[in-house]
């Protein structure tokens, strides 16, 4: 009897979120796979019957180039984020407590700031009339006719800018718990500072590094706003193509086909990490927590 009541309780507490996420997350995701095999109708909807033409059309070199670029941009952005996030997280974790709280808050604030506004801020300073361009030209570092905006460099720069806080927070969470006497011990045993850092500190925060890679790499695969606002025709990513198929020529099945490519690209690193970690999945909140 008690067991039955417990079962009932579990059922009623689980049902609302389970039902909602099945209806608005699982089914729509499955639908993307199904509708990609439907033809498009001329009114921007989904036609009747089945076709594999859309999926075959994805082998177009144009799409392959864009898929490749998406991976490349995400890879470089993740690498730069890690290079900046590790020293920053380390410095914040080792700062005296008062200053640590201030630094942490300074890292968190951009995290709460509107994504669009942060991207827009870069658009206006990289603009030909903007501050950075003028400063660089004034210092003689770039040619007045050069373009800082609407290229791959701008896309990577702004991607790093928008995702860096997400990389810093999980690494900070681990760096704060790290036992720094281990570093001292390594030094006493004759390791040089960088050696101690690489062989003792980095392995000690490995889990957080993996988290940081995932929270930067996966969202940048799905990047859309950044290449849309600061990128040009030569720096389009998968997200732009999906959006164009939806908003420009309203071909939903083709947008679905491109989304499948993106889903596969996202699954690859996730499954890789899961395979590496074995079956350690436990019910616990993510390190760092917060916004996506």
């Amino acid at each position, binding site marked *: 009897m008690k067991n039955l009541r417990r079962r009932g309780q579990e059922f009623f507490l689980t049902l609302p979120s389970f039902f909602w996420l099945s209806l608005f997350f699982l089914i729509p995701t499955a639908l993307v796979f199904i509708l990609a095999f439907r033809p498009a109708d001329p009114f921007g909807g989904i036609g009747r019957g089945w076709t594999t033409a859309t999926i075959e059309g994805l082998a177009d070199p144009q799409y392959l180039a864009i898929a490749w670029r998406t991976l490349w941009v995400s890879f470089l952005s993740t690498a730069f984020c890690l290079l900046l996030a590790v020293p920053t997280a380390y410095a914040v974790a080792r700062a005296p407590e008062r200053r640590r709280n201030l630094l942490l808050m300074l*890292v968190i604030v951009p995290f709460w*700031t509107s994504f669009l506004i942060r991207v827009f801020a870069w658009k206006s300073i990289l603009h030909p009339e903007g501050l950075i361009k003028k400063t660089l030209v004034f210092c003689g570092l770039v040619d007045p006719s050069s373009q800082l905006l609407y290229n791959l460099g701008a896309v990577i720069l702004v991607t790093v800018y928008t995702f860096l806080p997400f990389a810093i927070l999980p690494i900070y969470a681990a760096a704060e718990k790290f036992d720094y006497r281990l570093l001292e011990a390594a030094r006493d045993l004759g390791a040089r500072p960088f050696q101690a850092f690489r062989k003792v500190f980095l392995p000690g925060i490995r889990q957080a590094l993996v988290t940081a890679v995932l929270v930067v790499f996966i969202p940048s695969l799905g990047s859309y706003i950044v290449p849309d606002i600061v990128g040009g025709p030569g720096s389009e990513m998968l*997200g732009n193509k999906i959006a164009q198929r939806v908003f420009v020529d309203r071909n939903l099945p083709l947008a679905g086909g491109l989304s499948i490519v993106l889903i596969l690209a996202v699954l690859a690193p996730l499954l890789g990490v899961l395979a590496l970690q074995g079956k350690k999945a436990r019910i616990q909140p993510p390190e760092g927590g917060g916004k996506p």
Partner: protein
Amino acid sequence: MKRSRFPFIVTGLVLVFFYLPILILVVDSFNASRFGGAWRGFSLKWYVRLFHEPAIWTAARNTLVIALIVTFVSLLLGTTSALALHRFSKSRFQRVHYTLIYTPLVVPEILMGISLLMAFVAAGVKLGMGTIILAHVTFCISYVALVVLGRLQDFDFTVVEAARDLGATGWTATRRVLLPMLAPGLAAAGLIAFTLSVDDFVITFFVAGPGSTTLPIRVYSMIKHGATPLINALSTLLLALTFTTVLVSQRLSKSGALEGGQ
């Protein structure tokens, strides 16, 4: 042991990198010049213009209405979910439930946007405020559930048991003991849901219909159509709002709130 200065130098540069663009944007919003880069004197004219743009006020109202409903619904669904995950953590069913809660967090926004759009089109649902609310609740549930779950995990349940021993019914113990103790966690989760909803552009853009323009969609079309000084002014106002929110939440956290997720 002498510590390397290098990490502190990088941190300094990172902070400059974080704040310089925002600072320039704020300064430019008071610039009389139409283009940034050259200072033509202090002026509030862009703010005055902003107040005479009815489209912005409609968008702001839509955003607020959506965010309030989304916060309420996702708090409800996320909290029940966290309670289930916590209380029945050994159940196999909860493992599936946990995966279902966790997965939306790792799915890029654009995928959620396109899949919801396809579902709404396939089901013949009219796009508008309603579809935006459904979409926002979908991504907010996970955040609420995980923040509340984090709160529940360092929670002293003997207090609830004590209430039961003293004769409180299950419901009374939940309402009079559990919920008040959970309140700071709920406040933190609500704040996150509210911010996520107000800030979301990508998913909203996919599922929005005529007459349901939100503030981020408005800002996006202004960026696309080059109303630069107006966006500077609007952004400055929104930034001021964000900074105030963060300050308030920090204050709350000093008194024990907003430690969700830790």
